[in-house]
């Protein structure tokens, strides 16, 4: 279970094969994995998130959210 970071990806993004491939490629700490063209989030890697925002930039605005589970509980999300 992650203590520090949570990542949410909306349903349409999760089933978009091209986007899934892109997310898997860009994440430097392997938070995303592909399973039959669909997106899996690897819970064990969530706390390794470096807040690099590469996933936010790779996906359509608002489809990926990175949440801090500490402090102000800021949510990182790409604005349109």
């Amino acid at each position, binding site marked *: 279970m992650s*203590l*520090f970071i949570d990542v949410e990806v909306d349903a349409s993004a999760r089933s978009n094969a091209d986007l899934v491939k892109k997310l898997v490629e860009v994440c430097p700490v392997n938070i995303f994995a592909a399973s039959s063209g669909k997106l899996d989030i690897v819970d064990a890697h969530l*706390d*390794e998130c*470096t807040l690099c925002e590469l996933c936010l930039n790779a996906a359509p605005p608002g489809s990926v959210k990175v949440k*801090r589970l*500490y*402090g*102000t509980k800021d949510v990182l999300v790409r604005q349109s």
Partner: protein
Amino acid sequence: MRFYEFESKRLFGKYGIPLPKGSKVAATPAEAKVVAAEINGPVVLKSQVLSGGRMKAGGVLFADNPDQAAEAAKKILALEINGHKPRGVLVEARAPIAQEYYVGVTWDGVARMPVMIFSDMGGIDIEEVAEKHPGHISKRHFSTLMPFSDFMAKELVAGVGLSGDHLNRLSRLAASLARIFQAHGLTLAEINPLARLDDGTFFCLDGHVDMEDDARDTQKGILKDLGIDPEEKRQARPPTSFEIKGAQVDAADPRGVAGNVVEFDGDLGLVIGAGGGSLTLFDAIRKHGGKPANYCEIGGNPSVSKTCELTKLILSKPGVKKIAVMMNVVSNTRVDIVARGVIKGVIESGQKPSEKIAIFRIPGSWEQEGFKILEHYGVEYCDRTVSMFEAAGRAVAKMKA
């Protein structure tokens, strides 16, 4: 890296430092017998172990003929000293000694230069001479930037009042030792005792050499000449189970460094590092009266999981009451990532971060993010306005509270 006595002597021999007749290593009693026969006189046989106390443990024996030498070698080769098995047995000629001296070269960390040390009281610990007979010891620093000159060695030897032929001969030996020290990246080159025979000649009776680990690459040639595998690790004692597990933590994940641990018997676990910071912080803890449970090195941006595993390992050590997480100012390690790792390690160990982490003092990259995490978990932290020494003092104070 420590050298065996026979390796030290081989190195000294290459620079013309006289050695006892024979001075060969035997791996079997039969080989010892052959060397003793070549010497054709009384011999001394010495266990080749990287440990002190050989004489007391029975690792140094004498023989008057080759058969006795074989028997002595058999005993020595079967003898383990302080957990070390002998690499072989050194067989050398015995000769009547008129006087024993000490000469050594090492680093003076305070002066930040090498220092030569000489005494006309050899054969005993130089620390004991310095304490009880300070008039019989002299020191001379020298630069690593300037060529070494023989007059420096002469000043050293003359410092204990020697003159004439003895001064000249001993100065040449001391100069050779200083040149060996400089040429081969050594941290210690020592001859103790340096013996003077009745006929006025000198030779190295026992020698110690330590080479800086980082010098191995540049010293491959001499290591090959001496028959030393550059990859061979030589430690003062075998690694403990704690240390082996630390190395496994480090090896399991290539991201950053977290795991080079050395076990001590204190109660304050240390997660420390950064450009010499770990040594400074370790010393600071001790200066404040704290008792470190371990030494360690973290840096190069270790992953959360790696730092977490290291923290769990340190907390699993019996007697560890709290941990102190401290580094120098870091630019290549993220403060928030280390904060996550140690907090996760504490929580996965079933403990509360606010109680278990005595102090968190890592200033540098992403420190504001790190401080948010620490505040969230109620961990006491400080930034670069608090010195490493002061942070160490706060950690020790918490242990005593």
